[in-house]
Structure formats: structure tokens, C-alpha cells
């Protein structure tokens, strides 16, 4: 085997200045304004008059090294060997010479890249690992992203919306993604409590930390079995115990499903950042194309397009019309599960006599 180079520790990441394109370096911190030219192209103008054009394309986030080599080749041809990614997993090509914009766009189109995601549209979907890589996944995140975006891609590449609509997918209630503050988000959920494999608990789990892991205090020690027991009526199927004790598997293919939450945002524009709220508590986990989930997402998006004012995010629209009306215009059924009984529950009950029919 060949000699390995000398390892180094605690060096941290390379300094970003090594990777900035010259036009960015020269105008760093001196940008004046920007204009959105199309769904996938914008231009930033600096105090000096210098301009940089950005062309944005979607990626599936899970990409092969060959995909990276392909985009590098394009960046070498048009962008002097520079490119960047966005926080929502898009790829951006930056050019300082206007004459290169159209040829770049054309080549990207020819090669089948999906250009868009800028402005009041749907951008790429923030999501988690799912069955591709995670032990607690109730559903597959990459698959849900794919089927949802196959249906909604026109809102990425051309059609405008009242405001940005941010989508996210998390494959279990840990929600590694940014689901809890998205306009429309999917979360994998369980409906049944974990099963205790008593013979394994002894070896795999530390009992006090397992007991402590349960947010609803449903778990107590079971000294006779050298294991634990669950008060079933207290369990909210969060899976937290499974994360701490692998002998308490919670996955249940017949009952695991997908919930939809809506109306969250992280920006401070106009109204304060908001958490997403429950719109649909459970839909069947129906791979490979999850038709029920896609249909319900479209139902919500269409109601929003129909009802919202310009610049109004989904959550702002719902707050203006009221949640009672949201259920009316979307036709989604309102059930017991929609009423909060967790930490912040009482803040959410209607303590007034005013509401809409």
C-alpha cells in the first residue's frame, strides 16, 4: 500500500478567500443592489459598477463524485473554475462577463440541468437522510422530495407564486431538516409505541438514561426483568427512547406514515418567524411515489395561490384568514390530533368568542 501523507489536526476549514472568484473578491462587502432576470438568473451590481451574474440549478443533494466533476467542467468553461452551493442545496455558477450568460444557460439546458429557484418560487427542498442513511427513519426523505418536486417543478423553473414557498422533508420527528419552520413540510411519523426487547435491554441500554429520555415520563424501570416498561397511554411515539436504547425499536411499517405541517417561516420580513403547524396528521407511507402525500401538498399549495395577497407567505395568509378558514378552503378534515396537548398547548387554544363560520 502506498505511503499516506502526514495527518494534521485542528486546522479548521480552508479560508474562504482562497475560493472566491475575482469579481467577488474585488467587490466583497460592496454590493449595491440586485435584480432577478428570470427564474434562474440574477445579477448583483456593486458600488463600482461591476456586475456578477448568478445562474442557479437544482441538485438532488445526494450526488455522485461524477456529478461534481460534471459541474466542475462547466465551471471551468464559463466561470474560470469557480462555483458555489446554496444553503438549500442548489448549485450556482457565477460569471462576471455578460456575454457568457446565455451560452452557459444554453449548455446547462442542453445537458438537462433544471434552472430556476430564484424569486417568488419554490426553491430546492431541505431534507434529511431517510432510508438512504439513517437508523430512525420512518420514511424516505429523498424519495418524498423527488416525487413532490416532479409534480411542482414548474414552480421552480418558471411559474411565480405570491411569495417564496419553502419546502422541507424530515424522515422522523427528530427533524434534522428545517421542517418546523417551513411553508409546507413533510415529516415521517409513528403511530404505535416502541416494542421492548427485554432480553436485549440489559446489554444495550443504560436504564436510567432510557427512563430519562422519555419526554412524557412514560418509561419506568422494571427491576424484575432488569428492563423497562412503558405506560402505553402516555406514549406519544416520538422515538426518543429508541435513540437512547436500541432495544426499543419503534418502526412499524403498517402504521408509520407521513404528516404535513404548514405555515412556518424563518425570515423576519413583515411578520415574526413562525413554527409550522399541523395540517394533516397522517397519510399512508406509500413508496415509491407517495400519491396521497403529493395530492395533499398540491391541495394546500393551490388554496394558497388562490387566496394569498402578493408578498404574503403561506403562514401569513393563514393567519389573515384564520386557521378555521384554512381547513374550510383546503377541504382538509380537522381531527382530534390537530388540538395541541404538548408543551405549549394552552397558548394555542382559542380564548375568545370570535371566529369565522
Amino acid at each position, binding site marked *: 500500500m502506498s505511503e*499516506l*501523507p502526514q*495527518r*494534521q*489536526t485542528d486546522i*479548521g476549514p*480552508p479560508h*474562504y478567500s482562497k475560493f472566491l472568484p475575482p469579481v467577488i473578491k474585488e467587490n466583497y*462587502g460592496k454590493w449595491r443592489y*440586485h435584480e432577478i432576470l428570470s427564474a434562474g438568473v440574477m445579477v448583483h451590481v456593486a458600488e463600482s459598477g461591476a456586475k456578477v451574474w448568478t445562474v442557479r440549478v*437544482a441538485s*438532488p*443533494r*445526494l*450526488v*455522485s*463524485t*461524477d456529478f461534481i*466533476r460534471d459541474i*466542475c*467542467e462547466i465551471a*471551468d468553461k464559463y466561470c474560470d473554475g469557480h462555483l*458555489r*452551493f*446554496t*444553503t438549500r442545496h442548489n448549485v450556482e455558477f457565477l460569471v462576471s462577463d455578460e456575454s457568457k450568460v446565455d451560452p452557459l444557460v444554453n449548455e446547462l439546458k442542453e445537458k438537462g*440541468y*433544471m434552472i430556476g429557484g430564484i424569486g417568488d418560487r419554490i426553491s430546492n427542498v431541505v431534507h434529511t437522510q431517510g432510508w*438512504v*442513511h*439513517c*437508523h430512525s427513519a420512518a420514511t*424516505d426523505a429523498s*424519495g418524498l422530495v*423527488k*416525487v413532490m*418536486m*416532479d409534480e411542482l*417543478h414548474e414552480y421552480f423553473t418558471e411559474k411565480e407564486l405570491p411569495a417564496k414557498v419553502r419546502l422541507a422533508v424530515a424522515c422522523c420527528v427528530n*427533524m434534522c431538516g428545517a421542517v*418546523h419552520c417551513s411553508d409546507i413540510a413533510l415529516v415521517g411519523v409513528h403511530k404505535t409505541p416502541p416494542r421492548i426487547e427485554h432480553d436485549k435491554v440489559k446489554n444495550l441500554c443504560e436504564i436510567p438514561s432510557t427512563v*430519562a429520555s422519555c*419526554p412524557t415520563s412514560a418509561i419506568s424501570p422494571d427491576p424484575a426483568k432488569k428492563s423497562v416498561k412503558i405506560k402505553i397511554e402516555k406514549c406519544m411515539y416520538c422515538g*426518543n427512547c429508541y435513540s437512547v436504547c*436500541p432495544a426499543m425499536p419503534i418502526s412499524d*411499517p403498517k402504521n*408509520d406514515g407521513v404528516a404535513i405541517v404548514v405555515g*412556518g417561516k*424563518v*425570515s*423576519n*420580513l*413583515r411578520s415574526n*418567524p413562525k*413554527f409550522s403547524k399541523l395540517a394533516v396528521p397522517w397519510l399512508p407511507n406509500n*413508496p*415509491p*411515489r407517495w400519491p396521497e402525500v403529493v395530492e395533499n401538498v398540491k391541495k394546500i399549495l393551490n388554496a394558497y395561490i388562490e387566496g394569498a395577497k402578493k*408578498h404574503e407567505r403561506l403562514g401569513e395568509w393563514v393567519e389573515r384568514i384564520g386557521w378555521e378558514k384554512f381547513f374550510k378552503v383546503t377541504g382538509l378534515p380537522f381531527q382530534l390530533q390537530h388540538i395541541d396537548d404538548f*408543551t405549549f398547548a394552552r397558548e394555542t387554544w382559542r380564548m375568545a368568542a370570535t371566529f369565522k363560520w
Partner: protein
Amino acid sequence: MPQKHPTPLIDELEKGAFPSFVKEIKRAAESSNVQDNNYAQDLLGQLELSYKEKKTHWKHGGIVGVRGYGSGVIGRYSDIPDQFPGVAHFHTIRVNQPGGFFYTTEALREICDIWDKYGSGLTNMHGSTGDIILLGTKTDNLEPVFAELSSRGWDLGGSGSAVRTPSCCVGPARCEWACYDTLELTYQITQRFQDELHRPMFPYKFKFKMAGCAVDCIASIARADMSIIGTWKGNIQIDQDEVRNYAKNGMDIQAEIVDMCPTGCMSWDGNELKINDEDCNRCMHCIAKMTKALRQGEEKGATILLGSKAPIVTGALMSWVIVPFIKLEPPYEELFDLVERIWEFWDEHGKNRERVGELIERMGFPVFLKETGIEPHPAMVKEPRRDPFFFWSEEDVEK
């Protein structure tokens, strides 16, 4: 190498307009650049089975990492390794990304070459936390990958009960609204806290996210224990000619700007836009919609918020204000000092797996302020308390 396992279910996900992750796994499975195609081949097989059975086939187990670090490698094992030996080990390596996610193609190719030699050829660009995620390798390859990466100037990111890889918005590199240098601060925080990042010694994880303004493109308020969000003092600078241009070009200034201002502090008479800056809460709506006409006030800095976390364990929190305004210029000592005081408080009182936000909820925000020496300020609350059950300490009462 031709495909080892038939995959009729996930083949469905190669269809449709949006770029397909299944296609990417297949590319890695067949690529001649990738030295060992078995990772991606068996990943396809195992993923197909998950789609069929509707359940995950990954498990925890074993202890993996690189020597001296407790962070940056995530162990992953198949629960059916006999069927899919290629993913018996499928560990993730988190590589600390450069600020703003800017790269040269040379740097990216260097990483691809290393990963093709030692891993699956699959990546996430990027993980939700911000790292470059190298997806899938075996335990024996961890030290070689680390030696190859670190000798070329790349280090691992955070995981476990440590500082997680800090990340930031594109900021001053390509955004006119950045109120401080998000890339530089991110770099400096990462360097300053290398020890805390690689050697987990906290009760649980701690995340920093840097946003240049209240648009918060990095979602810091929802997913960082410390969210640093740019803001300003002083009047919004108005270019009235440009405002009139927006109106001429079809913008309904009254409906789209003035009526949507959350504080009702703007007025428009068809010719001149007025802002009563004293009442502006700097939400960024008007500036974001009229970028040519409006610019932020001149005294720039940031608001520091603390505490957001996901719903596990006691419900989600968003970060809330702990420092209304701070100037952020190198060497950032005031900020580092604050961070260290917060960690001391957390170290002292935090329970295992308790995030700093949860701890403050449990102990009380006033206790936190007192112990960390932060002065109370009305910007920290939406409203004062409703109940009369407040506490006094010794020094507040007459003896």
C-alpha cells in the same frame, strides 16, 4: 460494473422532471472512477428492500472515529450485512465546508479523487448542518481518508456533544444586505473553537449560525443554539428617484410596501416615501422589495439570539434575543467572551442531552442572565410577565 440487484421500485424515482438521487447512486455504482463500486451497488439493493418493506435497514453499533477526535465521523452499519456486504460498514465523514460554500473546481476535484479512492463516491453537497458529507466508507479507511484530507488543508466537522460545524449565509460575498462579515466571523469562530468542535465535552450539541440580516437565509433562528443575525441602527437611507422608478415600473407602493410594513411606520403620497425610523423594527420587508431604492442605516452590527432546537425533547424553541446589538469586527473578543460565559453556565447546570435553550427554560431566563452577567433589556421579551410570582434576592430586600 453492471447492476447487482434488480431495483424495480426505486427505478420509478428515475422518472420525472426533477433531478434524481437514484440516478446518482447508480452513477456511483457504475463509475469507473470509483475504486469500489460495491458500496453503491449494495446501497441500491438495500434501499430497494426498504422501499418494499417500508422500513430502514441501518443500525447503530461499534465505535468509529479518527484518532484523537470524538467528532466528524458517523458510524453506520447495515442490519443485514450478509445480504449487502458492500454496506456492512457505511460510515459518514463530515468535512468542514469553506464559508459561503464557495469552491474552486480544483479543490472539489481533489475531494472527489480522495473519496473515489477510499469511499462510495457518494456525497451530500451539503448536509443540513453545512458540512460536505462523504457518504459511506469502512472503518479501515477512516484514517487514510483523514490523512489525505488534512494534509491538503481540509479538517473534519463536528458531531456528537460538541460544537457543530458553524455555517453562514453568502453575506458580503454576494449580498448587499449583510450587516457584518458572516464568512469571516464563521471562519474565526470555527478556528477559535477547534478543540470544542473535535473533542465533545458538552452536555449536548451546540450550533452557531451566522445570518447577515433579518432575512436569515441560513435559518439561524430556527436551527442554531446561537443565532447571530445582522441588523443596524440609524435611519433607512432612501433614494426617492429610485422609489419613483419602482412606482413607474408598476409596483403598487401603497399596497405592497406601506400597507405591509408591520409597524405602520411608512407613508407614500405618490411622490415621496417617508419612514418614521423610530418605529421601524428593521424587519427588512421594504428593503428587500425595493433593493435599489432603500438601504439599511449606517451603524451596522448584529443581534444575538440563543436557544433554538428541534421538538425533541420538550418541544421546539426558536432562538430569542439575549444581546440586542453588538458590533462585530475582528478580533471578536467580546463575542467569544460571551460564548464562554454561556458554556460555563451550561457546563455547570446542564443535564445529559439538554440543549442550552432547554436548560434556560428549566432554570429560568432571569437566572441565566444573572449568572452570565447580561443586563436585562425590553428587547428580550415580547411582553413582561403576567403573573405576580417573581423572585427577589437577598440584596433586594431590607434587613
